[in-house]
């Protein structure tokens, strides 16, 4: 994959309301290109919403999101909006519950968007699909149906599918939460490989161990605000704010 100039991500005062509830309360955050950022925090704290805003799946009410020269203003979430389209081209997204297309094989899942959105000819799309499946360790499952795959295999197909659009980064929304412990590792292994290739990774996760090992930065989001952020060693070992301390204590058990 060839990338142009590295693109930094900046969130400036991103605010989101669901009715009365303030889900994101003026979030400011900068992520350098190629960084791996672990987004942690209590459930309902706004982690998933933040990810969905970046991809235009949910609109936000105020603030803006900048990725290099590209700007996503508030109140945009329609697929036909050029700003939203641009964001979706820059980031691939992987979901907790996989959301593979069940009527397509693993390879067809990966080929679908390059074929229909980018207009790649069948041969080129097949080639790209096979090489991506190989990259996630599923070269010999190309013709399997999603229903025949294990959870870990499904999630790796989903990652390959997101990569097929050649994004600058991946947005991962609790992608190991639905998996057994032994299957988590095969998925996290794939992510560590991608990090080495220079992909920007923004992941909502509960895997504190993985965050410590692989993340460049940890961001703690609670009650719609960033309560603490920094290198994993610093944030995870010695949180400074009471809110972060409280959360990390509950996670460790």
């Amino acid at each position, binding site marked *: 994959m060839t990338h142009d100039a590295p693109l930094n991500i900046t969130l400036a005062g991103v605010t989101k309301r669901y009715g009365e509830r303030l889900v994101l309360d003026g979030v400011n955050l900068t992520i350098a290109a190629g960084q791996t950022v672990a987004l942690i925090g209590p459930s309902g704290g706004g982690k998933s919403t933040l990810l969905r805003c970046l991809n*235009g799946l949910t609109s936000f009410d105020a603030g803006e999101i900048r990725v290099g020269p590209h700007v996503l203003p508030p109140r945009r979430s329609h697929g036909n909006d050029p700003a939203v389209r641009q964001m979706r081209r820059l980031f691939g997204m992987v*979901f907790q519950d996989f*959301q*593979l297309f069940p009527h397509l094989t693993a390879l067809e899942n990966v080929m*679908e968007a390059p074929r*229909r*959105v980018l207009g790649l000819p069948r041969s080129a799309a097949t080639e790209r699909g096979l090489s991506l499946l190989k990259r996630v360790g599923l070269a010999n499952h190309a013709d399997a149906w999603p229903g025949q795959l294990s959870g870990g295999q499904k999630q790796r197909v989903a990652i390959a599918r*997101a990569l097929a659009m050649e994004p600058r980064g991946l947005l991962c929304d609790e992608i190991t939460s639905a998996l057994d412990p032994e299957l988590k590792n095969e998925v996290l292994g794939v992510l560590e490989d991608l990090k080495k290739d220079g992909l920007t990774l923004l992941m909502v996760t509960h895997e504190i161990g993985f965050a410590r090992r692989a993340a460049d930065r940890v961001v703690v989001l609670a009650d719609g605000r960033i309560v603490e952020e920094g290198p994993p060693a610093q944030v995870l070992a010695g949180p400074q704010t009471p809110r972060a301390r409280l959360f990390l204590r509950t996670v460790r058990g």
Partner: protein
Amino acid sequence: MASNALFANFFVLFVPFVVVSSAPAQPLRWGADAEGGAPYIFKDPQNPRHNIGFEVDLAKVLARELGRPIAFVQKDFKNLFLDLNRGDIDFAMNGLEVTPDRKAKVRFTRPYYIYKLQLVVRAAEKRFQTLDECKDLPGLTLGTMEETAAERLLDRLGIAKKNYDGPVECYQDLVAGRLDGVLLDLPMAQSYAKPNPRLRYTGAPLAEGYYAIAVKKDNEPLAAALDAALDRLLAGGELERIYSRWNLWNEDQEKLRLAAVADITAEAQGGFTFAHYFTYLVEGAYLTVEITLVSMALAILLALPIALARLYGPAWLRGLAMLYVEFFRGIPVLLLLYFLYYGLAGISEQYDLWIDLRLNPFTAAILGFGLNYAAYEAEIYRAGISAIPQGQWEAAASLGMSSPLTFRRVILPQAIRNILPPMTNDLVALFKDTSLVSVIGVVELNKRFQMLTKSGGDWVEIGLVTACLYLVMSVPLGYLSRYLERRWGVKS
């Protein structure tokens, strides 16, 4: 006749005694069809709860003569003989013509009226004046009623005919230009055609025949009592008074006094051969399949946009789509068929429209079922589509796929698996519903079966063959539906 008279005399003596000893006497059940039945028996325009007609008047005096009340029971004209033999009614009196094959099934009383047939055409008709001229002109179609002497005469003359359930629809279609003429009993023409300035009689009344009361074969006491009562009413001039009141008395009726029962006791004709009726039924089956498939194709074509409008349209379009579904799901398809066939033709007649709304029966049938089933299919599609998780939309969106592309490539292919099993079910239902189209003159499988059995065919044999034809077509569809359900059905 001699034994009948003996019986009758016995009865006349006996009846008053019965009345006295076990009053009130149980009413005799009289079966007839009051729908479009002028001047025989029909709804009083002043009071639709009330029936009037010359046969109503006749029933009144018969009750007096028999010393027993007579209660009217509404029955379908075509099924009167079935109802009689099943015991639902005690006698049928409804302008029933005495024919040889009917005589094989029921006991007719002495005739109470002598009818003739009258050819009616549009006022402007110039091509022909008589039935014979009509026979020599190709491409003409005359309307008549099923199970009547007029129908048999047209068959015998080899004139193309179209059957109707009642005289009203028949004359209506003549006015609408769907028919070239109508051949029916003179009393009907007198009630429905004569008052209409767009229609006129042509040629003299022809093909004289008898109306008689039908009684079950084993109910000889009742038949004999009715014979005797009619004899007395005729002799006493009461029949003449009733018919004159209805403007039905004419010199033909003088012959009633002569009309010997012997005239109407010819032997019944034989049934049909298997080869003869089987091809006739198979043709009907083909028509049934044709209507089913074309209607379903139309329903599917209409249903998808309606379902999409209900799911994704702006508020006003959603409302319209919902209105469509509620309307066509809520009205009986029979009403819809009547409206499309007769209603639209009436509108076409009344107003000078740029478009000809006089649909042929096949088109009306396809439209009726297509519109009706589109409502059901639209709901199935809507449910099938909305059952696909929202996450599938989001996954596709995150890959940069537009909504229409997502719908076409991701949602619809999955929704089809939810949709196909119930849709196959509906196809089987529609297949059987098509038998309704006989009301607008499409002679499909079920109608052919009815016509065969009522013309003397064997109920059981032809019934079994017809049922087999239906099953051969519907059972595989049922299996397909269950197979699809197992393979693809919604897992709940």
